[in-house]
């Protein structure tokens, strides 16, 4: 009798100890720099989170509008303390705070977007947005009548400069006369200034407005003036249905799913990920009704070549604004050159300062 009780008790303890571990959901946390309603950067990340949330055995939660710097460290630390298994921090300025927390919680997996620092339990990731920028540039170059494309730019950092160059190269590929005029706002999200910047480009004759910031106000400016626009981050056509040609968009779902699966299976390793169209991380939003079929076909064809890796965007000969050769004929820019890009290609009007 005593023995049976002991065996039963042992079995019970074992069952209690094992079963929650097997049934325990993986907790995944996301930290966003802006409110998710912005139709921009954080909105796109949150769509990726929703894909993860639908996975079996995973629960997710997020904190939005977390300012970069000390505030973010508190939020990341809090998530780590609460036992989150994977934490995604989706803004550049979260890099150092995340690294600090990552060192204190070796059993938690940390993923940082758009930075460059790594730790044994912290990886980083970004996407080759310039591929989609190139395609959107092709659409803009085909649709412009004035041959002046306006680009409302955020901050002169390699990510933004790379995007402008890719846009210009795409436009020139279909329209050698196309010129891209750049106005820096030095903002990521300031609808008033960004709209004014778009208007200043419209005033110098631009008839397609592209942008890098997260607010849809440049789209609105283009529609009010009756010209075209190219969005960014997510499909912005609801803000300017008559102007919106297309938009280079983020699609974080596949990357987030893969990362969480790797953590579940114990196969995750710390590395710097920079996938592109082949993984579906970046893409083009659906074309607006004003884009002719011929243009759609041309862009779709180029897209398939980029997806298969048959062609790339930054192939020589590429010259900078001053005319000096940056990428020789027959060569392609290396990833390091792309990540440190601080010069404009020919055909871009503006400074990188």
């Amino acid at each position: 009798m005593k023995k049976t009780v002991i065996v039963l008790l042992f079995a019970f303890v074992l069952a209690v100890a094992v079963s929650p571990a097997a049934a325990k959901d993986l907790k995944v946390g996301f930290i966003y720099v802006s409110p998710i309603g912005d139709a921009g950067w954080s909105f796109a990340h949150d769509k990726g989170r929703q894909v993860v949330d639908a996975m079996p055995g995973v629960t997710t939660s997020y904190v939005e509008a977390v300012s970069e710097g000390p505030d973010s460290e508190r939020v990341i630390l809090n998530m780590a303390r609460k036992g989150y298994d994977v934490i995604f921090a989706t803004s550049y300025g979260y890099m150092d705070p995340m690294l600090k927390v990552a060192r204190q919680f070796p059993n938690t997996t940390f993923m940082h977007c758009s930075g460059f620092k790594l730790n044994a339990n912290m990886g980083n990731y970004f996407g080759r947005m310039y591929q989609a920028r190139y395609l959107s540039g092709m659409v803009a170059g085909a649709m412009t009548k004035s041959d002046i494309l306006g680009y409302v730019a955020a901050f002169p950092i390699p990510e933004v400069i790379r995007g402008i160059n890719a846009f210009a190269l795409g436009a020139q590929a279909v329209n050698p006369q196309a010129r891209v005029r750049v106005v820096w706002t030095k903002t990521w999200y300031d609808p008033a200034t960004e709209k004014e910047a778009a208007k200043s480009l419209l005033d110098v004759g631009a008839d397609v407005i592209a942008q890098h910031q997260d607010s849809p106000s440049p789209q609105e400016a283009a529609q009010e003036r009756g010209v075209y626009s190219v969005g960014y981050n997510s499909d912005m056509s609801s803000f300017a249905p008559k102007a919106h040609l297309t938009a280079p968009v983020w699609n974080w779902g596949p990357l987030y799913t893969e990362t969480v699966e790797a953590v579940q299976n114990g196969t995750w390793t710390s590395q710097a990920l920079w996938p592109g169209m082949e993984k579906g991380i970046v893409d083009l939003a659906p074309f607006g009704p004003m884009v002719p079929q011929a243009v759609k076909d041309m862009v779709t064809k180029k897209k398939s070549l980029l997806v298969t890796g048959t062609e790339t965007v930054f192939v020589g000969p590429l010259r900078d604004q001053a005319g000096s050769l940056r990428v020789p004929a027959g060569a392609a820019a290396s990833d390091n050159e792309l990540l440190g890009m601080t010069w404009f290609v020919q055909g871009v009007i503006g400074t990188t300062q």
Partner: protein
Amino acid sequence: MTSEMLILLMAATIQSGTPILYATLGEIITEKSGVLNLGVEGIMMVGALAGFLAAKITGSPVAGVLAGGLCGSLLAGVHGLVCLGFQGNQVVSGLALTILGTALANYLGTPYVGQNAPGFYPVPLPVLSQVPVLGPIFFRHDLLVYGSFVAPALIWIFMKYSRWGLGLRTAGENPEAGAAAGIPVVGYRWAGILAGGFLMGIGGAYLSLAYTHIWTTGLSAGRGWIAVALVIFAFWKPGRAVVGAYLFGGVMAFQLRLQAMGANIPSSLLLMLPYGLTVVVLTLASMRQRGDQAPAVLGVNLEPRD
């Protein structure tokens, strides 16, 4: 720069100067009554949110402007309560108001980020908008801009020629003499604070209803502080406030257009222009100050006496 571009620049100048102008006029009225309100930035933020929400709910941009103004008055009323009711420090109360207003608008406004509301769109005035040069610059704007053309003149006439204007100025220049003459100076200070807050709220509502039509947090982006500086530049005169507001609006619009035209000037330098101008303007204003410009008891509370 072609003449056509110059006209577009001038039109943009007026648009970007308008929210600053409303806020500056509001601060002038408040300060004329002897109360310093440094909460302009916070009141503009709240005005922007209230205007947006009211326009979204009612579908009427006019209701939005009224709501923006009323909520501006409400928040300014907190300043009145602290300074007039409890003899609190005006500088501290104003700064607290900025922090409170900004945070309140961020907190309450976050769920609506990225949404649109019906707003004001340009309404070219008949006949006047066809006048060459002047037409496109002045008469192809939205209703709030036309309102801002009329407001400074009305405020000037009110201050200079009406009995109430005199009472308001008395509250800021010599409240003791006013009180001895039976003028309700505290009442005038309340009026100055509430009317000023109303205009600041409209300045904020302009940003969310006319400047852009998409709600976001942090719309004011420092314009309230520029308004505080402009009051000194304007020597507390509504007419000079117009010059100041358009000067700033012009510099903001101009630096973007310089970039668009392909001027090879680093954008960092161009973006400094409005703020550099603030420093220059304040320096010039204080050099040329002739002592009697500021209301005599500005920022001084009215202590109850036996």
